[in-house]
């Protein structure tokens, strides 16, 4: 009798406790939703770094020193890559030069493809067959790259500065003149409307910097959580696991230990596998681009972009491919290591490199590095990536597949262990 009433009390207590806990969790998740992403990324980074910590500790270095070394390495890597990427972002003046170079390249490719000497001359059979359809396409391209008066002046001022050698200056100028002298389509210096003067609303210059500062600090306050999460998860000596295992009923004690371990191992393996796979794709693209004659700095940057974006299924390879093609279009001179790739074949070279990287990724890297961990149905992948991008933007798209994989691992492990411990049939 006493036992029965005690059992009832326990049930009521645990049910109420669970409902209360669930409500608080939902409320906190809703209120603190901006912190979810930095927290997740902090946890992911800690997961990925754990083997390095184990490696250092195996070498006899104590935990605090190991964590300090990892943080220093991380800091240096972020600083180094950040600095490199920042130095590669073109200034507004450099962007104008790139626009001229790209427009010139596209116009030339168009003329070459159609076998024309200039836009008014007669071309080959491609021109006869598709010339009329391709003209508006090129016109819209040129329109996109063209400069207004202000930009043209800025471009000329920049060109006359000390940033260029005489040789470079004359080359860019001739490209600029070429795109201006083409009979068709006449696009340059046509945007005469100055948007600043025509704006119906008066500008509030004093408010703009203030809002930017506020925005910066609000972003900073969110992301400041990330290094702390990273640090505490890395420093954790099993306390997090102990807490969760501690609240499990005795009946599920051993099972919960097994679930924790299996999930931990599978997620760690998957995340490290994904990073290794993306790094290998990036490396193949880096080597490939170096072989076809890209500058090391450009090949390095495109390799990083392609490697990171490769984590996004379907869209990732397109991003890497796009970055390579863009560079191939503006690059003036390539010095290929492979003999049969000429100066004009940079675009083709990028296509081949990306195709090889994707082929290797699908046939070697994914099956051997990730194994069956990522065997998701293509429809799940498409829906996951699309849903992630709708709900959480870029990061949602980036983290959709890891999240799905993590949940799949958790559910399948719990199911397997419940059966092994004879809790369910």
């Amino acid at each position: 009798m006493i036992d029965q009433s005690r059992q009832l009390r326990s049930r009521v207590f645990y049910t109420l406790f669970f409902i209360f806990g669930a409500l608080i969790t939902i409320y906190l998740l809703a209120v603190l939703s901006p912190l979810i992403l930095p927290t997740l990324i902090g946890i992911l980074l800690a997961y990925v770094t754990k083997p390095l910590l184990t490696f250092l500790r195996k070498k006899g270095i104590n935990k605090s020193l190991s964590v300090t070394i990892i943080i220093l390495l991380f800091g240096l890597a972020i600083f180094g890559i950040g600095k490199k990427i920042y130095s590669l972002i073109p200034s507004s003046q450099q962007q104008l030069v790139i626009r001229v170079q790209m427009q010139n390249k596209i116009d030339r490719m168009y003329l070459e493809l159609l076998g024309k000497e200039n836009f008014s001359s007669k071309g080959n059979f491609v021109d006869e067959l598709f010339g009329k359809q391709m003209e508006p396409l090129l016109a819209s391209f040129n329109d996109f790259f063209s400069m207004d008066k202000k930009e043209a002046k800025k471009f000329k001022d920049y060109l006359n500065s000390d940033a260029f050698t005489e040789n470079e200056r004359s080359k860019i100028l001739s490209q600029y003149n070429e795109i201006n002298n083409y009979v068709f389509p006449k696009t340059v210096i046509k945007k005469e409307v100055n948007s600043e003067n025509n704006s119906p609303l008066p500008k509030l210059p004093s408010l703009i910097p203030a809002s930017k500062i506020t925005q910066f600090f609000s972003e900073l306050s969110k992301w400041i959580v990330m290094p702390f999460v990273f640090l505490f998860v890395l420093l954790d000596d099993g306390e997090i696991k102990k807490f969760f295992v501690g609240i499990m009923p005795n009946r599920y004690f051993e099972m919960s230990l097994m679930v924790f371990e299996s999930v931990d191992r599978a997620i760690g393996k998957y995340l490290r596998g994904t990073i290794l796979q993306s790094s290998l794709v990036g490396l193949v693209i880096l080597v490939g681009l170096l072989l076809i004659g890209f500058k090391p700095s450009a090949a390095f940057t495109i390799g990083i972009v392609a490697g990171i974006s490769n984590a996004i299924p379907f869209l990732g390879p397109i991003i890497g491919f796009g970055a390579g093609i863009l560079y191939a279009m503006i690059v003036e001179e390539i010095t290929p290591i492979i003999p049969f790739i000429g100066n004009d074949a940079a675009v083709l070279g990028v296509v081949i490199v990306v195709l090889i990287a994707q082929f290797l990724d699908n046939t070697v890297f994914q099956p051997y590095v990730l194994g069956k961990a990522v065997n998701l149905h293509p429809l799940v992948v498409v829906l996951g990536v699309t849903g992630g991008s709708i709900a959480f933007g870029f990061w949602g798209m980036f983290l959709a597949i890891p999240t799905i994989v993590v949940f799949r691992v958790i559910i399948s492990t719990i199911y397997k262990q419940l059966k092994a411990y004879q809790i369910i049939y």
Partner: protein
Amino acid sequence: MSKAKRLFQDVLWDNKVLKIFAGSKSSVLDVLKSNPMFEDFSNSELKAIAKIAYEREYNPGEYVFLMGQPGAAMFIVFKGEISIQREGENGAEIELTKLKDGETFGELALLDDSPRSATAFVVKPTKLLAIFREDLLNFLAVNPELGGKIVKKLAIITGYRLRMTNDLLMQKQAELEKCREELSEMKND
């Protein structure tokens, strides 16, 4: 123990308020120290082991594990009483042994996840210390020397139990042989 030391322990260590902050690590250390497996370990070594030990409280009538379940952890009786049982031919539980404070059971789970060979049943309100296999393996990777010491002790205990089982088997075989002889003598008579 010196008077001053005792006074210090009484006033500070046994003070309930301080105990909340200190946790029960000292008693965990005492339990580990009293166990033959860890008897010759230093205090710092025991502290490192205590970090991977889980404290669990069980009520009478509960099962720590059932026969046939995959083994994942080794248990040390902190306080209380555990009955190790096996199902007999008629379906009734046969008690193989009773374990009290400081005694160990389920050690084989530290070696692999083979199914439990018996059921552990809680007789009295019991507090157990559990050491999980994977935690021990991770511990072994980071502290190979200490981990090696634990594994060696584990091998000694397993060897001891094997010897005990062999002795028991020999004894039972001798008893069986004696019974056979007596039976044949009775037949001859």
